[in-house]
C-alpha cells in the first residue's frame, strides 16, 4: 500500500512569561519584610538562555544572625504559643494561595531552573500545594502522631535546599517545620532563588506572623552561617553528599538535630517478566525526569540479560521521541541543565564513561546554541567497576548493567555507597515483596518510578543521608524526642 504519511510537526507552544514579574533586584526576607542585605550580591540567570534574571543579595553572617534572631523571637512570642489548629489555618492558607498562583510559580520555576513547564505545572507546584495541605492537617493532631501526647517543637530550624526542585524542597522543609511549631531560616540554592522569594510574598499575603519564615539567599558561606549559628536548634539539608558530610562535621558535638537528604545512585531493576512497555517508560521517567537532576534518579538500569536487547531497543526508540529544548514550551520533555558548573560535571563523567570503555548513545537532537544543554544519554556495557556506575552524575545519563538472577540483581543494586531509592519491575508480586525487603534503599518503587506523595516518607540509607521527610515520619525530625510526658 502506498504510504502517504507525512511528519506531524508540533508547532511551538510557549507558555507566556507575562504572568511573572521578576524584579531587577531582591533583598532578604527577614522578620516578614524584604530588607537589603549587608553582604555582596550575585546574579541569577536563566539556564536555557543565560539571560540575567535578577540581582540577588548574598546574606552575610550578620544577616543570617538577624534572620535567626527574628525566627527565635517569632518562635518564643508567637508560633510556639499558638494552638496547632491556628498554625494549621496558616498552612492551609499558604497551600491555597500556592494553588491560586500555581501558574506564576510554574513559569518562574521553569525560567529560573531550566526545567520544562510541563513538569513545574504538573508535578512541582501541585506537589508543593499538596505538601502544605498535608502538613496543615497534622498541625492540630500531633498528639496522635505517635510521638507522645503533647510533642513539643524544637525551636529554630536552619534549612538549606538544593536547586533541582527549588520550591518543592522548600515545601518539604517548611511545611512540617511550621506544622510542628518551629520557625525557620531557609536558604535556597544560589542558582534558583526566585521561587523561594516569591514564596516569601505568599507568606506576607497569608499574614503569616513576621519571623516565622525567613528566606536568606546566598551561596555556601551563607549556608555555613546558618548551619553553624549557635541559636539554630535543627539543621535540615538536602544536597550533595560532600556538603552533607561537612554539615555533619560542623554540628557534631552540638545539641543540634540534623536530617540530611543526600545523593543517590539508584538501581532500576527490570526482571524478565516485567511489563516491558511500562518499564521503558519507568526507565525514561527515572533518569530523564527533571534532566536527571534528581537525587533519587534511577541512574543505574539493571536489566535481566535475557531481555536486555529487547528493552534497550525499545528504550532507544522511546528516547528518539524525547523533545529537548525551550523549557517554557509546553511540549518540551527535557529542559536545560541547571548551570555551567553542573554541565561541566556531567560532561566530565560522561567522558570518563567513554574512556573506561562503555558504549555511549544519544538520539539525534538539535540543542539550542545558548544555555546549558546535554542530550539524553545512555551508556551500555557498563560494569560495577566503572565510575559511571558508582558516582552520582546528576544529569540525563543512564548506565545500563545486566544481571542473570534476582540474587545477583540485589547484590549489584546494593553494591553502592548510596541508598536512596530503587525500582523493581516485574509482574510477579512475590518477587516485588522479596526484592523490596532486600534492597537497602529508603524508597522502593515497584512498577513505577519517581512518584511522590506527601503522605509517603522519603529518605536514605548510607551515604544518601538520614532522617525522613514526608508522611507521619516527616514530623519526627521537627519534634523533641524526649518521649511522652
Amino acid at each position: 500500500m502506498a504510504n502517504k504519511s507525512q511528519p506531524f510537526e508540533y508547532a511551538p507552544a510557549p507558555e507566556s512569561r507575562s504572568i511573572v514579574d521578576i524584579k531587577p533586584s531582591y533583598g532578604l526576607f527577614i522578620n516578614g519584610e524584604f530588607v537589603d542585605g549587608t553582604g555582596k550580591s550575585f546574579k541569577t540567570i536563566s539556564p536555557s538562555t543565560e539571560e540575567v534574571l535578577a540581582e540577588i543579595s548574598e546574606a552575610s553572617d550578620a544577616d543570617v544572625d538577624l534572620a535567626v534572631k527574628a525566627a527565635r523571637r517569632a518562635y518564643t512570642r508567637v508560633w510556639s504559643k499558638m494552638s496547632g489548629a491556628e498554625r494549621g489555618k496558616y498552612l492551609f492558607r499558604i497551600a491555597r494561595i500556592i494553588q491560586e498562583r500555581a501558574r506564576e510559580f510554574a513559569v518562574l520555576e521553569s525560567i529560573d531552573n531550566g526545567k520544562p513547564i510541563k513538569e513545574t505545572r504538573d508535578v512541582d507546584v501541585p506537589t508543593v500545594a499538596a505538601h502544605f495541605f498535608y502538613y496543615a492537617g497534622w498541625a492540630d493532631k500531633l498528639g496522635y502522631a505517635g510521638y507522645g501526647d503533647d510533642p513539643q517543637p524544637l525551636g529554630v530550624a536552619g534549612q538549606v535546599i538544593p536547586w533541582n526542585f527549588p520550591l518543592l524542597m522548600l515545601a518539604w522543609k517548611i511545611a512540617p517545620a511550621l506544622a510542628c511549631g518551629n520557625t525557620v531560616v531557609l536558604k535556597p540554592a544560589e542558582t534558583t532563588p526566585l521561587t523561594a522569594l516569591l514564596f516569601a510574598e505568599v507568606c506576607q499575603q497569608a499574614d503569616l506572623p513576621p519571623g516565622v519564615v525567613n528566606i536568606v539567599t546566598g551561596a555556601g558561606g551563607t549556608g555555613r552561617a546558618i548551619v553553624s549559628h549557635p541559636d539554630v536548634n535543627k539543621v535540615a539539608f538536602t544536597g550533595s553528599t560532600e556538603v552533607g558530610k561537612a554539615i555533619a562535621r560542623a554540628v557534631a558535638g552540638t545539641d543540634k538535630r540534623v536530617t540530611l537528604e543526600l545523593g543517590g545512585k539508584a538501581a532500576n531493576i527490570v526482571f524478565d517478566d516485567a511489563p516491558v512497555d511500562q518499564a521503558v517508560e519507568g526507565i525514561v521517567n527515572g533518569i530523564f525526569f527533571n534532566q536527571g537532576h534528581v537525587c533519587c534518579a534511577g541512574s543505574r538500569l539493571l536489566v535481566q540479560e535475557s531481555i536486555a536487547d529487547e528493552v534497550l531497543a525499545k528504550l532507544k526508540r522511546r528516547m528518539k521521541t524525547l523533545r529537548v529544548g525551550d523549557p517554557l514550551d509546553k511540549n518540551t520533555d527535557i529542559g536545560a541543565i541547571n548551570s555551567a558548573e553542573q554541565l561541566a560535571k556531567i560532561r566530565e563523567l560522561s567522558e570518563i564513561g567513554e574512556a573506561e570503555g562503555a558504549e555511549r548513545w544519544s538520539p539525534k537532537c538539535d540543542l539550542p546554541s545558548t544555555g546549558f544543554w546535554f542530550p539524553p544519554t545512555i551508556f551500555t556495557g557498563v560494569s560495577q567497576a566503572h565510575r559511571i556506575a558508582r558516582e552520582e552524575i546528576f544529569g540525563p545519563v543512564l548506565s545500563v548493567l545486566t544481571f542473570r538472577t534476582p540474587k545477583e540483581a540485589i547484590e549489584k543494586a546494593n553494591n553502592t555507597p548510596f541508598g536512596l531509592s530503587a525500582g523493581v519491575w516485574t509482574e510477579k508480586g512475590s518477587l516485588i515483596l522479596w526484592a523490596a525487603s532486600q534492597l537497602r534503599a529508603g524508597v522502593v518503587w515497584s512498577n513505577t518510578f519517581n512518584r511522590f506523595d506527601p503522605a509517603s516518607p522519603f529518605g536514605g540509607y548510607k551515604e544518601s543521608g538520614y532522617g525522613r521527610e514526608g508522611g507521619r515520619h516527616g514530623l519526627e525530625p521537627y519534634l523533641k524526642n524526649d518521649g511522652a510526658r
Partner: protein
Amino acid sequence: MTTTNSTVSSVSEATASDAALRRFLHGLPGVDQVGAEQRAAGLGTRSIKTSAKAFAIDLAIQMVDLTTLEGSDTAGKVRTLAAKAMRPDPTDPTCPATAAVCVYPDMVPIAKKALKGSAVKVAAVATAFPSGRAALDIKLADTADAVEAGADEIDMVIDRGAFLSGRYLEVFEEIVAVKEACQGAHLKVIFETGELQTYDNVRRASWLAMLAGAHFIKTSTGKVQPAATLPVTLVMLEAVRDFREATGQMVGVKPAGGIRHSKDAIKYLVMVNEIAGEDWLDPDWFRFGASTLLNDLLMQRKKLTTGAYSGPDYVTLD
C-alpha cells in the same frame, strides 16, 4: 517465551494448536494498568497549536469512518451520510473527504451507489454485529453478503465469549474464515475492549487478530461502554508497532465509539505519532469510527481559518 522477537520467529508454530496459541499469547509481556494509563494521560498533555492543529484536523477528517449503525437506518439516511462523507464542508472545497462510511450490510448497495465516483470507501459491519452471537456459517454468509454488495471493508466482531473462556484458536480460526469470505475486502477486527476489560486481554486479542491476518484492529462496536479509550488504543498501537518489528507487516488501528471532540482526536493522533510512529499517520493505517466527531472537526477547522467559532447551525447535520 517472554520476548516478542523470539516468539514471532515461530508465528506458524504459535497457531498450530490451542495450547500453543495460548502459550504464545500468555507469553507476551504484561501491561501494567497504572503505567499504561499514566503514559496515555501524559501524551494527552501535548499542546497542539496553530499549524500543527490545522494539520491534525485535516488528517483526522480524512481518517473518519463516518458511521451510522442504527435499527432506524434508512436509504435516505445513508444517502445523506454519503453526501456528508464526500463533502464534509460544502462551503469549503479544500476540506478533505472522510475515509469511509460505515453501515450495516443491507445498506451497502445504497452507500455504494451514493458514493460512486468518489474515493470514499464503504465499510460494512458483519458477523452478527455487535454481539457476534451467531453460528459461524451465518457470520460468513453475513460477510459474503456485504462483500457481494460491494463493501470495500468489513468490520467484524470477535467472539468475546470464546476469547474470555480461553478458546483462542476458535477465535483465530473464525477470523481466518471471515478473512477468506472477505475476498480481498479489507478486514477490520473489532475486539469490543469494553467487554475484554483488561489491557492484557487487549494485547492478546491484538496479537491474535494480527496473526490471523487482520488488516485493522478496532476497539469497539460503539454499542458497549466504555468504547474507545486512549490507554486501550495505546496498547493496540504498541501491538501493531511490535508486530511490524517482528514480522515486517503493518496493521492499522481504529478506535471507535466515544470520540466526539477534536481535542480528543488530536490526542489520538499524538499517540499514533509517538507510539506507533509517523508511518501510521495515514488513513490507510489509522481510522476513527465516529459520527459526531466530524462536525466538531469541521467547526474547529473553520475556527482556525476564520478566527471565530461558528456554531452547530453552520455545519450540516448529516
